[in-house]
């Protein structure tokens, strides 16, 4: 399965949530590969706690590969290389977890036919090796996204692969509107996809939203607020839900909601079982939500036309 992670804006938790998604899928036994297509600012190496990888990836990362400067993009076995203390011993029954980092010096580039062929060849090759390929795209209607849309279109070469689009957004007015615009707007994914030969129903059926950093008003985090504050926040939440529904990204199109997690506010990292149960620094709800996301990405019941 091919999973594209998109967002309209930066700071939506797209990369960190996608990395956690990859981690949970691997824990569940899937062989997972994570491609950092965020050409502007590759961050996956940091999230997976691979400090030396950014330097090693220079001149041989994904960006260099797509430009034809190297024949094989650099790949990193996360279980073997991570400095995250909880991840060093690969859990029994888990699948492989491999990162293909981007290169820091990359920057954006204009896609052409050669980039497309290289992208398709790469993903077809990885498809033999991995159950799930997660591609983290730069924010907005980026070149990376156009490349992904062309590659997965019927003429692009990846048209036969099972593909899913995750669109991340935070739970605020601006982010909700921007996410809806990214998918359904004039310049949005669906319109761009149709122009490239995608079937709109199929593209819609394989697109779901992930709400990130959503404040859960019933959680202990908010237990100290005054009744007035509580009432105001409740009202905001309700209005946001109405706004989202009105823009076509209401509850039925949401695959998962990731609660506001203090640990992630401080550090973009993987949330582990130990963080929740031993160190007790992260919330169990976060761990659960990430697990749900992983389970639903894999479950056909949550996908298709509504």
């Amino acid at each position, binding site marked *: 399965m091919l999973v594209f992670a998109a967002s309209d804006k930066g700071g939506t938790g797209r990369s960190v949530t996608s990395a956690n998604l990859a981690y949970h899928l691997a824990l569940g036994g899937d062989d997972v590969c994570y491609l950092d297509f965020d050409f502007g600012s590759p961050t996956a190496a940091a999230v997976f706690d691979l400090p030396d990888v950014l330097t090693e990836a220079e001149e041989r990362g994904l960006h260099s590969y797509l430009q*034809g400067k190297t*024949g094989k993009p650099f790949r990193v076995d996360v279980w073997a290389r991570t400095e995250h203390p909880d991840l060093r011993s690969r859990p029994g029954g888990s699948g492989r977890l491999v990162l293909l980092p981007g290169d820091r*010096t*990359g*920057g*954006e*580039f*204009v896609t*052409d036919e*050669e980039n497309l062929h290289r992208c398709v060849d790469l993903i077809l090759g990885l498809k033999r090796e991995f159950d799930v390929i997660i591609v983290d795209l730069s924010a907005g209607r980026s070149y990376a996204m156009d490349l992904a849309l062309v590659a997965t279109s019927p003429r692009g070469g990846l048209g036969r692969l099972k593909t899913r689009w995750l669109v991340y957004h935070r739970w605020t007015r601006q982010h909700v509107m921007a996410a809806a615009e990214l998918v359904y707007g004039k310049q949005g994914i669906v319109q761009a996809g149709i122009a490239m030969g995608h079937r709109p129903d199929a593209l819609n059926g394989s697109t779901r939203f992930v709400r990130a950093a959503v404040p859960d008003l019933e959680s202990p985090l908010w237990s100290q607020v005054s009744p007035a504050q509580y009432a105001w926040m409740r009202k905001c939440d309700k209005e946001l839900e109405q706004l989202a529904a009105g823009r076509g990204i209401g509850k039925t199109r949401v695959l998962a909601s990731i609660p506001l997690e203090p640990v992630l506010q401080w550090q973009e990292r993987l949330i582990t079982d130990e963080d929740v149960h031993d160190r007790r620094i992260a919330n169990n709800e976060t761990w659960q939500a990430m697990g749900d996301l992983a389970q639903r990405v894999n479950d056909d019941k949550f996908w298709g036309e509504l």
Partner: protein
Amino acid sequence: MNRSAAVFRETSAEPRTESVPFSHLSLELGHLYMEDFVEGPARLRRHFAAVRPWVDAARAGLGPLGTGRRPRISTCFLIDDYFSRLSTPAELIPPLLAAAADAGLTIDYLARESGCAVADPAHRDRAELAESVLHRLVESPPPGSNGFRPPVSRTGWLTNGRRAPARRTSAALDSTGTVWQPPSETGARGHSVFMDVELWNGPDDDRTWSCAFLASVWQLVRLGLLRDNGRAVLTPTPFDDQEFPAEWDALPPVLRLNPQAAPFTAYVTCSVLPARFLPVEHAVRVILDQVHVEAEALAQIAERSAAEGFAVPAGVVDRTSYVFPPGL
């Protein structure tokens, strides 16, 4: 007998390249566009009158062979029925033959250009010749080609060197700051004469082959270097004193009009052509230089020509020659 084992034996051990007969020289008596035919018999007579002295020169140039025997020379003429069909074989061919005869020339073999493009109607199971040749192109690598970055190929085009790199990024986005580089000819003497040849256009499953590419196929056919799964292709069909049909497709791709003619395929070729075809023939040489022909076909020629004491150049492109006479 076990049939499967036989298939394997056939391909791995048994010689399987059909041999063809060879003249020493295949002499092409000019080439015309359909529009030229429409101009009438006078135009055709002028054509062959201009060709005649150079045909004599080409014959004389080959001379008597070392063994004292007369060389085998066959003549041919290619009709363009691929790009346009203004007339029918019944209308077009008899005046053509008459005009050649007026100049004292005999057309031994008459071929249709479509025969170089589409599959032989008599052998529907075979591949299109042009497509077979397309798959046999091995691009000449500009220095620095190491297998990872093959010469930047542009679908449907072939060059004699290295193209100017495409500007794939805007200057603001390009971190490497690439500057423009001129195209270059591989193995140029000092300065380049760079050529980029269009081989075909149109969709993949319905290509229109270029004139230059079909002319290259035509040269390879005359040189007896093409096979389809080891079988000879475009073998001439005897066509003695028959009526010419009203449809081009009803005509075999290569006709033998002269029963006494020497073999159609030859060790070397010479084409007497109007100078307006010079750019096309330059392109033909660029293409022929990059066609990988079957080793067994080459070996058969080497063996037979050696036995006759006739020197055949090793390179395919060196087996072709041209005359571009004045007034043609």
